[in-house]
């Protein structure tokens, strides 16, 4: 039974990609998290850490062939993973919606914006013709697209990147979903637009009381927006905490490394950046110890032998044998 109270409750989610003649790839491995209404949850990690696959699995958008999804995704009393596809199609867009990374390719290039927005309204809200068009114009207006009536008739290529992302957000919010998953919503945009879009997301979530799952590799975005943060590495959550706790006191060396690699305005000019050595391409499976161990400065012997468990303490969850100490400097 799902615990009462949590809007979205993901438990022990795992996604395995299987292919004949190849080793299975565990893209998501025992990920659990919850999100409540009005809350913004950040899912952080570098490319290949399984953030996007997690979101696709929650939405039921992974292909059926060659993919094994395990665990539970509780939403509104249902386990989304076991719902029949027709029910799931009703939930998508209506109750849970998603905003994707690339606004250039996420809109159909040969269909006017208006039709793409009204399509969602017609699908879920039984709106038709003029009413749907009016509602679409209001939506575009709400997400800050100027002159919405003209924009509705235009094609995606006539809009700037920021405008397209706004249109996509309008589509996602069209039916006032209770959960919005934003998968790197600002990665393809330039910095000033990024700030606007994030501000917009924040505002919309606050006004509608929806839950926001924000997937990103950018800790700056997390700092500005999220209540809770889960840091993922190689398919597993390695550290979870409230934003303040995590930023003030990162304990997992990977979190510390992510924070240390962010360029700072108050650092002296010309100071070197501090990247995490190695790359996720050196992935080790979690079954042979800690997957982050090869890149970790705090590595101790058990790291290479046994998989660390996610230990929960009152203010955080941590998966590490030799975490950074509270007073320790972020490793340079």
């Amino acid at each position, binding site marked *: 039974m799902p615990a009462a109270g949590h809007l979205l409750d993901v438990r022990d989610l795992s996604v395995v990609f299987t292919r004949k003649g190849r080793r299975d790839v565990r893209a998501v491995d025992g990920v659990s998290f919850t999100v409540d209404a009005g809350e913004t949850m950040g899912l952080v990690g570098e490319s290949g850490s399984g953030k996007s696959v997690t979101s696709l699995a929650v939405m039921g958008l992974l292909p059926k062939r060659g993919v094994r999804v395990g665990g539970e995704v509780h939403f509104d009393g249902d386990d989304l993973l076991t719902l029949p596809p027709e029910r799931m199609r009703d939930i998508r867009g209506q109750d849970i*919606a998603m905003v994707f990374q690339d606004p250039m*390719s*996420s809109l*159909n290039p040969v269909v006017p914006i208006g039709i*793409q927005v009204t399509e*969602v309204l017609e*699908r*879920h809200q039984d709106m038709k013709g003029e009413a749907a068009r009016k509602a679409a114009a209001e939506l575009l207006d709400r997400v800050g697209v100027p002159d919405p009536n003209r924009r509705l008739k235009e094609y995606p290529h006539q809009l700037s990147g920021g405008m397209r992302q706004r249109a996509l957000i309008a*589509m996602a919010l069209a039916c006032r979903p209770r959960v919005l998953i934003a998968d790197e919503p600002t990665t393809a945009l330039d910095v000033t637009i990024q700030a606007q879009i994030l501000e917009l997301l924040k505002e919309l979530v606050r006004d509608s009381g929806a839950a926001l799952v924000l997937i990103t590799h950018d800790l700056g975005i997390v700092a500005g927006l999220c209540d809770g943060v889960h840091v993922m590495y190689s398919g597993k959550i390695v550290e979870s905490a409230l934003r303040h706790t995590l930023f003030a006191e990162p304990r997992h060396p990977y979190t510390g490394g992510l924070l240390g690699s962010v360029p700072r305005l108050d650092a002296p000019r010309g100071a070197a950046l501090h990247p995490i050595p190695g790359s996720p391409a050196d992935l080790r499976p979690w079954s042979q110890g800690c997957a982050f161990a090869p890149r970790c400065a705090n590595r101790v012997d058990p790291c290479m032998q046994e998989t660390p468990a996610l230990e929960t303490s009152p203010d955080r969850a941590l998966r590490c044998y030799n975490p950074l100490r509270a007073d320790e400097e972020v490793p340079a």
Partner: protein
Amino acid sequence: MALIGFGLIAFFVLVAIFAPLIAPYGPTDRPGADVITPTNIPGPSAEYWFGLDELGHDEFSRVVFGARQSLLVGVVALLLGMAGGLLLGVLAGAFGGKVDGVIMRIVDVMLSIPGLLMAIAIAALLGRSLLSVMIAIAVINIPIFARLLRGQMLAQRESDYVLAATSLGVRRRSIILGHVLPNSMSPVIVQATLTLATAIIEAAGLSFLGLGSPDPRVPEWGLMLANTQRYLASAPHLAFFPGMAIVLAALGFTLLGERLREALDPKYRR
């Protein structure tokens, strides 16, 4: 080049539409019936621009009226073939899996038979008429369109906007018909233009082989070519003008098709 192609097509379309106004004689009128003998078939002159044919028809009038037949056969054959091909392609591309497998194997079988050979067989089976020529050409074009559209649709189904639409709960039917299909059409349009060119040549070819209209008086370019075989040495103009008309009409559609391909096909861009 595209302008030349477009010009040629416009020219032939106008000629076809206004044939009765352009041609000085009707296609079956025989103004030179008294002049010609088997050894004397006059060539181009001021009165008969393209000369007279072996029955005393005005060759110019017949070439002009022939534009109607050729364009009609080409367009009807194309539309029939495209309709059949698109239907199969949409089914295969939309459903995938077993439906796709069955349809594509049928298409493979059709493609494995040489086009003209199959067209000859079909036209022969259906009997001599322009309609059977159209059907024959349509049938050999069905697998080409089916395969083209199916491949495009399968590729488009993987695109981001389809995922985005799916994530918003849009129904499968709307995604296929409203998103995937419109994005898959541009190579089909290109192929249609190029197919018009080959359809005109194939129609002429089938008529030349005697599979077209059984009535020798019908002004059809391929048939006109076939009828002049015996007089090739004494009256080469009878082969030259209809042949030229076929070449120019096919060239027009080819040039336009190539330009369309450059404009619409991302592989040819930049």
